[in-house]
């Protein structure tokens, strides 16, 4: 049957074992990409003709901002699957995403602010892009708070999933906020249909950092997922194998 893989992904013992096996395959390539990206971004890439060495903040700001949106999308899709198919593992994925996404949204805001001061002359502006990213942080925090406030795990899963799914409307708003309206923030220079607006020596380290952070998210998610799956199982006999094997 073509759907067996889907059913296997719904099986907690299978997911627990698979996540443990897959973690190093994400963690080590992530480390390699990030180290290479750092070297390329801090040492090899030439200074920008307008921003000098200040543009190097891009190599941490853009991957963090990418994480903030990619993790939220993953969380909302997992939450929707959990709601529709009542799949415990999907809820566990969504719950694992929230702290990772929240922390990188915070990083995107802080590094953006540190980039804004020398280039725009201000740490903060109530601009559409900045404001919608701040709302994203509040969505993550709301999700975490809601989960923490509900004692029954199944009710916490369902209520927080609803919030995650509704909050997804903010993701395209963030992405297009710089295109739709006049924003202080620059328009996309990599994720667009035309050729990226950057020479290869600047672009390559950025792509390495983006790939590295995405793989890092995979590794963090897999570790957290095992914890969340285990916490949702009360009596299953496979737990003995999982914690004692």
């Amino acid at each position, binding site marked *: 049957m073509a759907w067996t893989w889907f059913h296997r992904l719904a099986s907690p013992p299978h997911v627990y074992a698979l996540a443990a096996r897959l973690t190093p395959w994400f963690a080590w390539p992530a480390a390699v990409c990030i180290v290479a990206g750092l070297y390329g971004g801090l040492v090899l890439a030439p200074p920008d003709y307008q921003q000098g060495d200040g543009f190097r903040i891009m190599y941490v700001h853009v991957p963090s901002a990418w994480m903030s949106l990619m993790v939220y999308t993953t969380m909302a899709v997992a939450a929707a699957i959990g709601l529709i198919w009542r799949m415990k593992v999907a809820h566990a994925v969504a719950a694992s995403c929230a702290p990772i996404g929240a922390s990188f949204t915070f990083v995107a805001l802080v590094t953006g602010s540190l980039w804004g001061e020398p280039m725009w002359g201000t740490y903060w502006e109530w601009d559409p892009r900045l404001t919608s990213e701040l709302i994203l942080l509040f969505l993550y925090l709301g999700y975490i708070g809601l989960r923490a406030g509900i004692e029954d795990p199944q009710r916490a899963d369902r209520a927080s999933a609803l919030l995650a799914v509704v909050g997804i409307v903010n993701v395209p708003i963030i992405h297009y906020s710089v295109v739709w309206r006049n924003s202080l923030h620059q328009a996309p220079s990599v994720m667009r249909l035309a050729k990226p607006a950057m020479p290869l020596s600047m672009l390559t380290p950025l792509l390495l950092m983006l790939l590295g952070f995405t793989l890092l998210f995979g590794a963090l998610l897999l570790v957290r997922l095992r914890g969340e799956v285990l916490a949702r199982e009360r009596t299953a006999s496979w*737990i003995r194998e999982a914690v004692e094997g």
Partner: protein
Amino acid sequence: MKEFLDMGGYAAFVWPAYLITFAVVGLNIAWARRALARSQRDARRRLQTQVQLRKEAA
């Protein structure tokens, strides 16, 4: 080296940005491992309670 650390005059913005990013990366790794360890400990405790209850019932 001095030139590299100076970041063309942007050192006060570039280095804090990198520091915060990698502090959060490190914290995320520590938090994820701690969360898993806590779940494993709780699961072990639940198993022990079950064994205890079964013994008492027998």
